[in-house]
């Protein structure tokens, strides 16, 4: 009940006309395979407001990851258009508007935690290019993700959860306007995952960055997302965009609230139809 009331308070009437962080217009993506081209995504049309935490769910093969990869210019578009803060994905990538967190932390094993966080400051910066930097130093970012004192640890000395924390700190070092996360906690145990879920929400609230978060866990999608994008497979297309009526400030125990349970049940129904 309380959750519903707060949802009404936060409401859907923003103070200023919202600016789209990501705007997809009839976007299609195709891959060439030995058996001919495969359509991974077809006619995706979607606007994601600046500052949104959007979680993306769907059966395997629905192109969840592909959606993140096309937005971040890792795979080309086959048709339609995608813009990131009004720019093409390539411009946004070159301008360091986008950061990506992978399922595997993708740390360089010969670099310490701190050196890994600093990597974006040492690569891909053209002569004379000004890049935005987080107000926090790399050391402070590591402290923010709970790794104070482990700055000089090598990745193999850290647990899976800690490595993913380093990857998150690394993603934040250039103060991205758009943070893409591809099942970042998929390989972690449940306790670690819960803790990181709370932390990523806190980071989202502190930084105000737009987050697109792919997951295959319905509870995770509901707990994190203001909205959940459900994709259907073969070809990947939008099934439904579901609002989550939970307040911005969430606690783990809200997973027992009526709104949480109702939304999760709705998503499970949708997933079965896909």
């Amino acid at each position: 009940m309380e959750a519903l009331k707060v949802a009404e308070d936060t409401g859907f009437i923003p103070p200023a006309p919202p600016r789209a962080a990501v705007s997809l217009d009839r976007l299609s993506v195709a891959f060439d395979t030995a058996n001919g081209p495969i359509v991974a995504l077809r006619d995706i049309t979607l606007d994601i407001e600046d500052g949104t935490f959007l979680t993306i769910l769907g059966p395997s093969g629905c192109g969840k990851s592909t959606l993140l990869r096309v937005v971040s210019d890792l795979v080309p578009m086959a048709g339609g258009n995608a813009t990131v803060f009004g720019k093409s994905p390539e411009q946004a990538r070159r301008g360091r508007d986008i950061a990506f967190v992978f399922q595997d932390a993708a740390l360089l094993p010969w670099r310490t935690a701190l050196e890994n966080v600093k990597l974006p400051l040492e690569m891909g910066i053209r002569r004379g290019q000004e890049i935005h930097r987080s107000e926090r130093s790399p050391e402070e970012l590591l402290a923010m993700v709970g790794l104070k004192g482990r700055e000089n640890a090598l990745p193999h000395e850290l647990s899976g959860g800690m490595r993913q924390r380093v990857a998150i700190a690394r993603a934040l070092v250039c103060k991205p306007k758009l943070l893409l996360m591809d099942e970042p906690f998929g390989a972690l145990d449940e306790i670690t995952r819960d803790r990181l879920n709370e932390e990523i929400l806190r980071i989202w609230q502190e930084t105000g960055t737009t987050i697109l978060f792919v997951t295959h866990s319905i509870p995770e999608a509901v707990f994190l997302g203001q909205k959940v994008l459900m994709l259907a497979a073969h070809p990947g297309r939008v099934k439904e965009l579901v609002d989550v009526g939970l307040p911005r400030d969430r606690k783990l125990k809200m997973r027992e609230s009526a709104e949480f349970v109702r939304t999760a049940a709705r998503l499970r129904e949708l997933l079965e139809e896909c």
Partner: protein
Amino acid sequence: MSIVNEIPDKAAGGSLRELLPSSRIVAPIAVLAAILLVWQTGVRYFDVKPFIAPAPTDVLAVLVSDYPLLLRNFWPTLSEALLGFAVGNIIAVLIAVAFVHNRAVEKAFFPVAVFVNTIPILAIAPILVLIFGNGMTAKVVIAALICFFPTLVNMVKGLQSVGKDALDLAQILSATKNEVFWKIRLPASLPYLFAALKIAATTSVIGAIVGEWIGADVGLGALIIDATFNFRSPLLYATVFVSSGLAVLLFLMVTLLERRLVYWTANPRH
């Protein structure tokens, strides 16, 4: 043979350690000491002629008495092996870099490299001595050739061992090809490179010695031939011992360097 010949050195220190409960050190030393003992008593008991099989004590005696002769022949072989090691590995690394940057180059040259590798080193050594003469060059070339292939294969594998996520990350960061090479590919290749360098450390010595067999006045290989034809078996055994000592020395140098450079993990993860 090399294991047996190491014993005189280690057995002395080993007898003190036998009281300590570190079976990892004690057990192999005990086995080697036993082999030595059997060898020594066997040779004495059956009265085997020294030119057929010298006793360990005979070998030790020559090691001491002919120390200047052994050392005089040690240095040329060391320089040939070291130079061959350097030349062969540097060329292998450079070609591996070219392969990774250009697939067409790899397709054109890799089969040639495989073919060169299939020629037995003993078969190609006389050809190289004919081409480069009796001097040091032929030995260096043979040592380089024997180092070349394992390093090429491992280095290509190492440079390509970078995970997809790391490459995606580099792309998201708009990293240049140069940055990807120096900051990601090259460090990632080091564990693979050192695996090959450890092989090369011992094979380069083999290459130098094989080269000296074909035609040389100095070097451990020449000394082996000389001692064999003159039935100086204790000297032959002593030379073999010094040769294996040289290989062990190079191997240890590479291992020490590896520990300094590849500090992040014993096994490559990506």
